[in-house]
Every structure is written in C-alpha cells, then in structure tokens.
C-alpha cells in the first residue's frame, strides 16, 4: 500500500472539506483497506469519518428508522426493530462476510463499497473502472459477473447485500456535501456504469452518506440468497421481496435482485406478475420466471439466470409464509 496521510474528521463539515478524489472517506475499512493493499486505489489521504458525532445511532423516525451511516452491520443485526420489522434487511445482512467483518463494516460503507470483480481488484488486468481501455471480464472468466445491464462499459455486480432490501422498503439516502444536505431515493442513489464508469453512485468525491431513512414497512418481507460458500462468500444471486398482503393475496409486491447487475436490480415484471395473485408455489414460480426475463448473461454465467429464478421464488414464499424455504 502506498503511504497516505490520515485525517481524523470530527464533524461532517470537516470531513467534507477534506474529502476529494485523492482523499477518501474511511469507515470500517473492510473494503477500502483491501483495495489499498492491492494497489487498486492509492489515495493521498484517508479521512476517518467514524469519529463524527451523530452518525452511529439508530433512531425512530416517522414511524420507521433513521440509521446513521457509521452504524455497523452487527449493530443492525442486533437491533430489535430491524430483526422484527425489517426481516428482508436482517436476512440480507445476516450472511455477510464473517462476524469480524460485520463488526467493522458500516452501513454507509456497504452502500458505497467498491466492486469485488476479480479483474478490478488485480492490477495486471485491463479495467475501465480503473481508467483502462477495456474490460477483461467480458472476454474472461465472468461467472460471478452481471447478467442484467451487460451492454454497458462495465459488467460488475453491485457488492451491497443491503441494497436490494433497502430498495424494497423504499429507503432514502441522506447525503451531505459542501452545499448542505439532500435526500436521494435509494434507487436514484445507485448509478449504472453507462452514466459514469468510474463510480457506482451519485456521490461526488466530497459528498458523504450520513443516514439511511427507512419508512415504516407495510407488509411482509424476506430475502433469499444463493451463496455458494465459496471463499469468503459473496452471494451469487439474491432477491429481496416486500409484499402487501390481503389474506393470501399480494396487493402490492416489490422485488429487487442483488448480485446480478451493476446496481440493485428492480424486477418490475415479476412484481406485476405477482400483483393481485394468491401467493403460492405456482404464482411465485411464475413471478420468478418473469424476474429472469431480460437477462443477458455473459459467456460464463448463464447459471445465474437459474439462480435468479430460484432466489425470487424462495424469497416470495419466505415473505408470504414467514418461513425460510
């Protein structure tokens, strides 16, 4: 890792003033430090944001929750309301990394984490995200890459497991920058590589995620992921589902896929297919088929299409029954 200056930011303002494309925010460091060690990123400074007051609390907010960006994944997992009212989020966080990683990782860091594409992380390969000319993944081994939005300049999958759950709950992201603070809808927060290949979200180099706002849940929800227990486990495909139920019938369905596209991937066709239907094996299976429509897998990851179907079906059934399938 290259030498860097270390700046301890005591306030949001101080952090924002120090941050730039050469001075990166440091939260738990579980993602950033790896990239530094691998020479993927070589910033001149790290701005420690963990000392900023007010960013590490989970508070009640308009019937839902206001979660500080520095809250760790472990703290979220231990929080009674997250567990009780937001099962899709709880289940999504549950399998991330290891206890040590979850103790360090923050929610803000999870939303802003950089891709774990093995070509991005390996200096010998060409990578547009790292400023190169081509994408080694397109012709290379791409079994863990995107199956949606694969025509863009980068076929990464977004690494955040929390993302899809936050999407189905309709969360907002509070962003602080030099000009003050604004709220972005979670779906607007994540951006496709076609918009700007070097980054994964709307943040400018001197902007900070300060909070995530979760509205009150209205219905049942669940996350199912297929995770092959390979290496330190990243999901291969996951689905978060939130259903507004009337008896056995889904009045509304929100379905979002993870680990299959450069952003959490909303499965609108699947939502439409389920809407107004009695939820059972058959309707869940039909919605799952719809969720996989439009997939354009790469040379080596057609298998993930099947996994999307499996994850969606099982997530729907898990949400409806409250049981893991």
């Amino acid at each position: 890792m290259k030498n860097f200056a270390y700046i301890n930011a005591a306030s949001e303002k101080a952090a924002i003033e120090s941050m730039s494309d050469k001075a990166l925010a440091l939260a738990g460091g579980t993602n950033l430090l790896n990239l530094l060690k691998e020479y993927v990123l070589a910033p001149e400074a790290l701005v420690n944001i963990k000392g900023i007051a007010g960013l590490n609390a989970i508070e009640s907010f308009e019937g839902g929750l206001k979660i500080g960006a520095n809250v760790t994944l472990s703290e979220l997992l231990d929080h009674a309301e997250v567990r009780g009212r937001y099962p899709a989020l709880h289940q999504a966080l549950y399998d991330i990394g290891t206890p040590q990683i979850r103790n360090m990782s923050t929610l803000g860091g999870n939303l802003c984490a950089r891709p774990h594409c093995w070509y991005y992380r390996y200096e010998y390969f060409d990578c547009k995200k790292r400023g190169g000319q081509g994408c080694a993944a397109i012709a290379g081994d791409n079994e863990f890459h995107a199956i949606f939005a694969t025509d863009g300049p980068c076929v990464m999958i977004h690494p955040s497991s929390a993302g899809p759950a936050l999407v189905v709950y309709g969360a907002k992201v509070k962003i602080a920058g030099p000009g003050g603070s604004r709220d972005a809808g979670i779906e607007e927060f994540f951006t496709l590589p076609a918009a700007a290949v070097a980054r994964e979200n709307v943040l400018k180099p001197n902007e900070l995620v300060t909070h995530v706002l979760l509205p009150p849940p209205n219905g049942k929800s669940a996350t199912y992921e297929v995770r092959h227990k390979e290496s330190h486990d990243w999901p291969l495909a996951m689905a978060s589902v939130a259903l507004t139920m009337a008896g056995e019938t889904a009045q509304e369905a929100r379905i979002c896929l993870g680990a299959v596209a450069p952003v959490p991937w909303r499965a609108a066709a699947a939502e439409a297919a389920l809407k107004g239907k009695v939820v059972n094996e058959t309707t869940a299976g039909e919605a799952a088929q719809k969720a996989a429509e439009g997939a354009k897998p790469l040379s080596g990851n057609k298998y993930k299409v099947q996994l999307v179907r499996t994850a969606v079906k099982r997530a729907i059934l898990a949400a409806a029954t409250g049981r893991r399938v």
Partner: protein
Amino acid sequence: MAKTAGKKSVTRTGKASAKAPRRARQSAAKAAPPASQRVDFFKLVPKPRFVGKPVKRKEDVRLITGAGHYVDDLRLADMLHVEILRSPHAHARIVSMEVEEARKASGVVGVFAYKEISSLCGDVPLAHPGIPDLKVPHHPVLADGEVNFVGEPAAAVVAESRYAARDAVDLIRVEYEPLPAVVDPEKALAPDAPKVHKELADNLSFSWEVKGGDLDEAFKKADRIIQQRVRSQRLIPCALETRGVIAQYLTGEEQLTVWTSTQIPHILRTQLSGMLKLPESKVRVVAPEVGGGFGSKLNVYAEEGLLSALARLVAPRPVKWIETRRENMAATTHGRDQIGELSIAACADGTVLGVKHDCIADIGAYHQLFTAIIPTLTGLMLAGSYRFPAARTTLKGVFTNKMPTDAYRGAGRPEATFIIERIMDLVAAEFNLDPVEVRRKNFARKFPFSTPTGLAYDTGDYEKALNQALKLADYQGRRARQAKARDEGRLVGIGLSTYVEICSMGPSKGMAAGGWESATVRVSPTGSVEVLTGTCAHGQGQETVFAQITADVLGIEMDQVKVQRGDTGNVPWGVGTFGSRATAVGGTAVFEAARRVLEKMKKVAAAALGASAAQAARVQIKNGKFWAGKKSLSFAEVAFQAHRGLVIPEGETPGLEATYFFEPGNFTFPFGAHICQVEVDRDTGEVSIQGYWAVDDCGKPMNPLLIDGQVHGGIAQGLGQALYEEAVYDESGQLLTGTLMDYAVPKATHMPWLHCERTETPTDVNPLGVKGVGEAGTIGSTPAIVNAVIDALRPLGIKHLDMPLRPEKVWRAIKKAAAAP
C-alpha cells in the same frame, strides 16, 4: 521389524556403555535390556501419566494470545527490506530491464536482477527422484532472460523500509516480449505445443511406471471393464502464515543466518550451502513459529536463496522479505493437479481384479524439491486397502506455464485414494451392489500385506474400522431413510471411503533424502530437561507430544520439559516435519534418547547413593525420585551429580544427554473409514452435508486431542477439495484465484459436525506403536464426500463428476440428465 535400530543409529550413551566392564553390563542387562535393544514404550511405562491422555497443547497459550514469534515478528537492528518484482506474464522474454529510476528512489539501497545474483546463488534445487532421463530446466532464483509463470521473481529491490522497496518495484521498467503460454497439460504434450523451456526437447519432464501382477490375466477374466477419467484439481495450500525470510551475513564471523518459515530447516541448510557455495558450518537456518505449511513449506524456495545472496551483498545488515497473500497464492507451491485415465477389471460380484491408471501430472514450470516424487506416490498407493492382484500406473510429468506443484497435505495419497475409492463406487454402481459390500469383498486381510505396487503394509484391520463407522453412522437406518427421501424426489446421498495411507516417512531406502529422525534429550545440572528434535512442527503439537513422552519416560512433569526445534544451531541434525512422520519417527527418536538418559540417571543415582550391585540393578523411580534400596535422590539431585562429576559410574562420562537417530524399518500404513451424507438442492445444485462420521486408526494414540485436531483440520481441507477449491488459471496463464476472496477455502461455517472415533491397531515399525495422523483427514474425506454427492445423483443416472463439486457443475449435470431420454 524389531531390528529397526540398525547400523545407522548413533547413540552417544550407547557407545559409552559398550565399554563398561562386563559385570556391570550384565547386571544392567538384567534390570533393563541394554539401550540398544528394542524396548516398547508401553513396556517401559506401563501406566503413562501423559501419553495417551487428552493433554492440552503446551504451545497454545502463546499462540492463542499472540505472544509467539513468527518470522515477521522478528525485527533485527539495521534491518533492510526486500520486495520482489514478479512476472505478470505466464511466458515472456525479458527484452530489457531499466532499473535506474528505482535505484535512485528515496530509501532504496539497491536493485538486483539475475546478473547481479547469479555468481552468488545457484539454481533452485530438487531432491533427485531416481527417475531416469528426468528433464530439469535451469531454475534461477531471479529470471534469467525469460519468465515462465505468473509470479516468477524477476528482480529484487532492497530498501530502508518495506514501503520504499514496494514503491521502487513500480519504478522498474521491464520490456517483455510475450511468448505463447501453455496451461493445459494435455495440450502441452501435443507435438506442436509451445515449449515452456526452449532448451528442452518438449514439455514432457519425465515418464515413470509402476506395475505388478498379471494385468492381461486380470483383464481377460473380468466380467466387465469400466473406464473412467478422473481429475484431482490443482489446489493452493493457503497456510495462514505466508512465507517470509530474514537473512544476515556476518562478514567477520563468516556466518550466514537465515530465519525462514520452513518445515525442513536442516535440509534447507544443506541445500542453501550448495546454492551459495558456503560450507554448512557457516550456514544456520532458524524456523521460528511456523503458521501452517501443509507441505508448501517443505521446500527450498528461490526467495530463500535470493535473500541469502542479498544478505551477503549488503552485509552485515539483515534483509527481510515477507510474502503477501497474493504472492503466496501465485508463487508458493501448489498441490495435486493430476488427470487419470482408469481401466478397471471387475467381476459381477464386485471383486476388482486389476486397475490400469494412466496419469498426467501437471507439474508447472519448474521442479521444486519433491515435484516429481509426489505423483509417484499416487502410483505406489493405487491399491488402497484392497487386495486386487494386478495394478499399473504410467505417469507423465508435464511442464506448463504455471506455478510448480509439490507436496500438499496428503501429497499423492489423496489422489490415489480418490481414484481407488471412486473405483469401488463405480464398481458398486455398475453391478448395482452396496458400496460397503464391494469394499468388504476386496479388503486386504493378511498383514504384512504386499501390494502389487511393491509396498508392504505393516498392520491393519480395515473391516473393523468400517464396521465401527457403519454403526456410528447408523448406515442401515440411513439407507432406509435415503430410500424414503428418494421416493419424495429428494436427492440424498451417502458416501464412504475406506482409505489406507502411507506415513512416517520413512525408511531411508524409500526416501530421496534421509528418512531417519534425530533427537537429543539433555538434562541440566539443576534438572531442567531440554528435548531437541530434528522435526519442525508448524501446528501439529509436537512440543506437547514430545514433552508427554519425555516426562513419562523420566518420571517428571511435562512443565519440566522444554522442546526445542527449528534451529540448526541448536538441534544437531534433522530431517523435518512432513509425511505424517514427526511422532512415529521423531517421537521415537525422543523416546530412545530419553530412555538412554534414564538408564544413565539410574546408574548415577546408584553410584551417588552408594548402592550395592543388587540395588543398582533395581533402581526405581517413584514420586519423582530415584530409589536404590531405601535411599533416594530427587531427579534434580541426580542431574546435579551427573554434572558435578564426583560419582560418575564406571564406564560412564560426566554430563547428562543422549542423542539418538531413529531409522524406521518401514513406512506405516494408517487407515480408516469415513462416511458422509449429503443432500443436493435440485434448483441450484448446492450440496449440503447432513452428517459426517469418521473412524480413524493411527496406531497407538499419543494424545486424542491432537489426533482430533489433525483429523478435523484434515477433513476441512479434504472437504475444500471435494466441494470448493480450485486454482484457476485462464488461457493466458493468469491466476484468477489469486486472493482468498477468489480461492475458496472452507470456513468454519462450512464444516459439518464431525463424529469421530478410533480403532487402535498398533504398528510394529516403531516402539511407540504409533502410525501418524497428520494427513488422514484430507485423504479419507474427499472421496467420501464426492461419493456421497454422486450417490445422491445416482437416480438421475449420473456416475461421475469432477471436483470441485460446485453447485453450477452439479446443477448442469442434473439439467443434462433430466434432458436425456
């Protein structure tokens, strides 16, 4: 077998006692046989206080609390740091190398390439496997004009800090002319394949064959001949501690000291002396704590020679290099990587008559120490625990543009066991027999048992271990429940493996280097006991076992024993820790040395107590004291007398230490039965392990806790090979699985609950009766798990799948089977 302590043994006290007056010798002989005769541990110590007990590991307190010292924890004054520029190409010519900018960078002391180093350090050596016409390419410690795998060292920067060194590596400009690379060993054998080494005729490094019995007859008599291709994929050993080296050369003293994370300090010292053209007397190798090796530190590495040479260039300042994880994955030896074409001659009742095995071993770009030897072990162990009369392995060792392969936990035996245990299941499936019955039908039952490949198995009772495992797993009930699950459409499978392996390497005649092991037991004037062992533990717990043995022999507490290892300046000589040899060979040396110390202490006690000849012949140890008649001396008092020098018995000399070199008469052959139940998810192909039962037999158990630890860890690694792990190179020879985020070692959460038991079939190869257990888990588990998955898929008509059984592969097989008519 009792004549193991043969000509090659050297014993100091043994020699001395040979000069004792006749009478004294005779009376001593009555009390206890002379030390040169075989005495079994359990005869000498019928009621051990420590051996056989679940004693906690002595080393754990310091290791668990982070108080141990690994190479990276050593900080010497004035130390310089080395970073290595490595090849980004699988195969390329170095057209030019521009180092000026790096040399001028701040903090840089020097930049070195082949031409600066070659006069100081020769090629990386190999242990000669005795294979005729072995092709051995030039293997310099820094690339000589050409690089042959990704990660090969090309230049080294020495700097005041690690950071300065690493930054300067980026300033070296190398112009490479990429050459065609070959990564597939079968393609590498094609006549028009690109050559890995231009100076060699082709990519075939060696051919080797082992055969025995009448194959023609076997294949003529067979009801059916089953063909199967099997692969043991390339694995990365992934020791938790990466490699690391510190070297310092003291010009005045002409003394090179090398601290390195190795399993074989003494062998390394000899080899370094050859590479550096320094006599061994001027080379000291120290292995501090070693954080795992699994065979990957059973080697002599380019970096060990390189750092030694650099130390001479910057003498007397020490130089330090610590391997990064990425380097470890790319440039520390890999394991396995064999493709086998099998022909099996089998009868309808499940009897196997003969096996032909044509093996291609992808050895990577060079020979490391045992690269060629490891796959020959696969051929030797092909018979497994079965008595089929005819077998043949032909082996081709093939160069590719990849990291060399070498020993990895099991080293040749997991491959053999995978083959033979798959064979048993293939035969069972072919004739619709229970795999248990097929195994029973074929078991070797008379010992010593001679295999068609020329080995003599010492002792065994394979059926006993199998029966115990079947009971432990409730095999019958499980099969019944499996049938029900199948009726419900679930894919549940039960697999087993009844392995035998070859351990306690080994008799010197069967080894490339010596196969003995040495130990010194030394008692100080105040009675503290040091055991110096030539083995070099890296996680096994030898400190504990050797202290158990010594304390029991000498009648003292384990705390009084300090086990020293890993320092050639301290331990007289040694071979090292590998091949599940440390307790069987090194532990025996400790036992023999301790026994000799005990004999002398008895004599000293008798002399000091003024005992009569009759009393002297019956000195006993009770409550930590030496008793002659009614008088006694404490252990420390006897030790003091031995050093004080006033009452030295006739024919003895002052001092209290014994050194023993134990040469085993044979290998040992531990065995066991592993059973596994899995369920496969039809929609995703995921395998979940529902139960695991293991009965292992490693001879006399020295410490059940340590055995469990070895078995558990071994099963984890075997499970890794069966389900997750694979070193993947892309077509151009780039290593894709170059970090632990990409290379899939199993985690704690992937481990099933293990139900482990033991049977005890002592060996007669050594006086401890112990066989070895370091690799058993790895060897036994992989086929049990794979057999279980294939069994789960049997209703779909699937007969074999290659490892790792990753979900996608399994799902595709399911899909293909469903589509088939």
